[in-house]
């Protein structure tokens, strides 16, 4: 068993290695980033087929959807979603009942509602879930199809696949509970708020075929109505209204997220892919071209740069618009730090925007357009329009717009250079140190770069072959090892057949071999 584990581990390690050899379609983790960037700089291009939907429908796939296109992803997981929606409603019902009960009891015993049993029973449920999951993994391990198991395993960790929809619904549960807890403090108005939010999310479930703008309008209208009412209730205290509104947004959007993020009715997905490809095509853009006032040689600065990149990538994993916004704000603060350390003075807008553009190019955040659209459509508007979060969000929108429209002029390059960099014929990284040679048939730097790239590519191909070979060997070893074990087990079983006998009714009662035993010692009397 133990050696088996080691074998499985090394297979997945090889798989990871393979991932890093080719530039991943999206950023897949801090470890592989370094590698992928290097290979991108060497100008290796991803095979077009790697980008297509794995179901072979001809549409582009997206790693965020396990390599499927949105349509196949949806079809594939419609059932899982349906189930989750039902679970959501069941939970909402339950919470409503609990909330009602808590309210009723608080009328008697004021302010101290009875602690409900919900958290405990939830815990139990989670435990059993974990158990079943373990069992299935072990099963997978020993079933003949175990060859494909590690692949699946690998995917489960990083994408919002239905296998973690359990986790997602756990999040929904937690948010619902928090919301009810929060509203309990409000007593009667809290109960009304809860009812309305619930009714609203339910009504939204029947509005699947609305356009994204119409969905947005529904949500924005709801925010507006709710905050108007709260405004009356709190007698114009904007702070209090906003605090309740934040909770309302969190509750509603956690529930609606799956249906309104990157909906089929929009071309958000197409734009995501276009932006992603665009950013990949711009891998050669340097700090100097953008006039970014950041010196990554300083460890503290590069530390902040890495943190900024992590924050902006994290945005995609959040469900509440305000939480996504918070990721952008955190990213921006790290950028400010990086600039302040480099320049030893506070950053202005002239420093900030180029640096943000640089960070976006470096991070290539997943589903960037979808996220921006989602925030724009479903965030509480007061936050988006005027405050600090809004400022950073606006800058992100500008950064994306800039990247989309970027041309030779915006980088202070000649159109010829820009073309050559874009087409991958030349790389600014290679040219900077040496003096420029006129483009001849032999001495051309572009040619030598191409040669170098080819050599590298060949080398990588050979290594790739070796890795595959080793993996195949391991696999066959694994199979023969398994067979050997099976054979051994069979032999042992044959040698020592297991016979189950009825338990003896009385000692020695059916001991057939008793008579073969030497007779028990008897006391003997010796004459003497």
């Amino acid at each position: 068993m133990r050696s088996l584990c080691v074998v499985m581990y090394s297979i997945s390690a090889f798989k990871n290695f393979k991932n890093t050899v080719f530039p991943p379609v999206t950023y897949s983790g801090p470890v592989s980033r370094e590698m992928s960037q290097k290979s991108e700089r060497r100008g290796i291009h991803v095979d077009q087929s790697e980008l297509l939907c794995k179901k072979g429908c001809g549409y582009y796939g997206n790693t965020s959807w396990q390599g499927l296109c949105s349509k196949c992803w949806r079809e594939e997981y419609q059932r899982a979603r349906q189930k989750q929606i039902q679970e959501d409603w069941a939970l909402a019902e339950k919470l409503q009942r609990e909330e009602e009960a808590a309210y009723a009891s608080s009328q008697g015993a004021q302010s101290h509602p009875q602690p409900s049993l919900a958290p405990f029973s939830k815990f139990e449920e989670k435990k059993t879930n974990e158990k079943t999951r373990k069992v299935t993994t072990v099963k997978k391990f020993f079933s003949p199809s175990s060859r494909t198991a590690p692949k699946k395993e690998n995917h489960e960790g990083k994408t919002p696949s239905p296998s973690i929809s359990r986790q997602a619904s756990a999040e929904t549960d937690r948010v619902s509970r928090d919301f009810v807890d929060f509203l309990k403090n409000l007593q009667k108005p809290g109960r009304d708020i809860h009812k309305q939010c619930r009714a609203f999310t339910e009504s939204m479930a029947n509005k699947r075929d609305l356009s994204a703008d119409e969905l947005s309008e529904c949500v924005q209208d709801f925010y507006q109505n709710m905050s108007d009412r709260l405004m009356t209730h709190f007698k114009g205290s904007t702070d209090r209204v906003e605090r309740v509104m934040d909770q309302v947004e969190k509750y509603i959007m956690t529930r609606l997220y799956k249906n309104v993020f990157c909906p089929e009715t929009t071309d958000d997905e197409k734009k995501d892919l276009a932006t992603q490809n665009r950013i990949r095509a711009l891998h050669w853009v340097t700090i100097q071209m953008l006039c970014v006032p950041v010196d990554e040689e300083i460890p503290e600065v590069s530390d902040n740069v890495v943190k900024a990149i992590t924050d902006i990538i994290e945005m995609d994993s959040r469900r509440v618009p305000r939480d996504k916004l918070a990721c952008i704000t955190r990213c921006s603060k790290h950028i400010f730090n990086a600039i302040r350390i480099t320049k030893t003075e506070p950053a202005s807008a002239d420093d900030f925007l180029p640096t943000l553009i640089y960070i976006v190019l470096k991070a290539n955040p997943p589903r960037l357009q979808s996220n921006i659209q989602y925030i724009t459509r479903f965030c509480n508007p007061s936050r988006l329009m005027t405050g600090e979060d809004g400022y950073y969000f606006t800058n992100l929108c500008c950064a994306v717009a800039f990247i989309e429209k970027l041309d030779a002029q915006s980088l202070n390059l000649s159109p010829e250079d820009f073309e050559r960099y874009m087409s991958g014929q030349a790389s600014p990284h290679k040219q900077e140190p040496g003096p420029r040679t006129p483009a001849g048939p032999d001495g051309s730097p572009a040619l030598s770069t191409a040669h170098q790239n080819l050599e590298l590519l060949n080398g990588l191909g050979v290594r790739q072959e070796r890795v595959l070979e080793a993996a195949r060997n391991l696999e066959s070893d694994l199979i023969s090892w398994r067979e050997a074990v099976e054979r051994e087990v069979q032999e042992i079983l044959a040698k020592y057949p297991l016979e189950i006998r009825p338990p003896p009714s009385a000692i020695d009662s059916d001991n057939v071999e008793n008579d073969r035993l030497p007779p028990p010692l008897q006391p003997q009397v010796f004459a003497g």
Partner: protein
Amino acid sequence: MILYILYVYINIILPISLADSFYCFDLLALLTMSAQRVDAKVVMLGKEYVGKTSLVERFAHNRFFFGPYQNTIGAAFVARQIQMGDKVLTLGIWDTAGSERYEAMSRIYYRGAKGAIVCYDLTDRSSFLRVKFWVEELQKCEEHCKIYLCGTKSDLIETDRTMRQMDYHDVQDYAEEIKAELFETSSKTGKNVDELFQKVAEDIYNSTTFQLMTEEKGVDLGQTNNSYFYSCCHN
């Protein structure tokens, strides 16, 4: 009897529990509030090097305005509170990147702004040409945004009158034509900086939309109109 219980509940118990909940709110606010609430957005526009950032910094550190300086980390966004009568108005000042490479995006910045301070350098005639560009843009896209023209670096022309390249009265005529206010400021000496921002704050405070916002049943349709958002980032 039932009525009496109801009466007691409404008048005694409910207020207490509401007070409780407010206390919870304040604790929550301390824990979750990331940024200060801002009442109105004011955007800085103008060519590179005219002195936008210096003006924001001057405003942010000026003792004339009270309250803590929120954003020590950078001068790109600054939130400042200004006392207006018995109320406090919080302005969010948005600095913008002035480089021409970002000009196409400036429209994204001033969307929803209540005021725009369009800067030009008193010692640089070319910087005024760009002023006209932004004024036209603002008039076209943000009709609710009040425009303030701001001639910067007035300390330079005070020491040497020949440095002045933009005549005050010419610009004043232009300002009247476009219904804008005109200020000539120096971020170096601080001259007229307070006056500029005080005027911006007053105008916002007196605007009907802000009054509605802070009134009891405040609904500010003008400000929270959704239609801004849909086109954001897509033009």
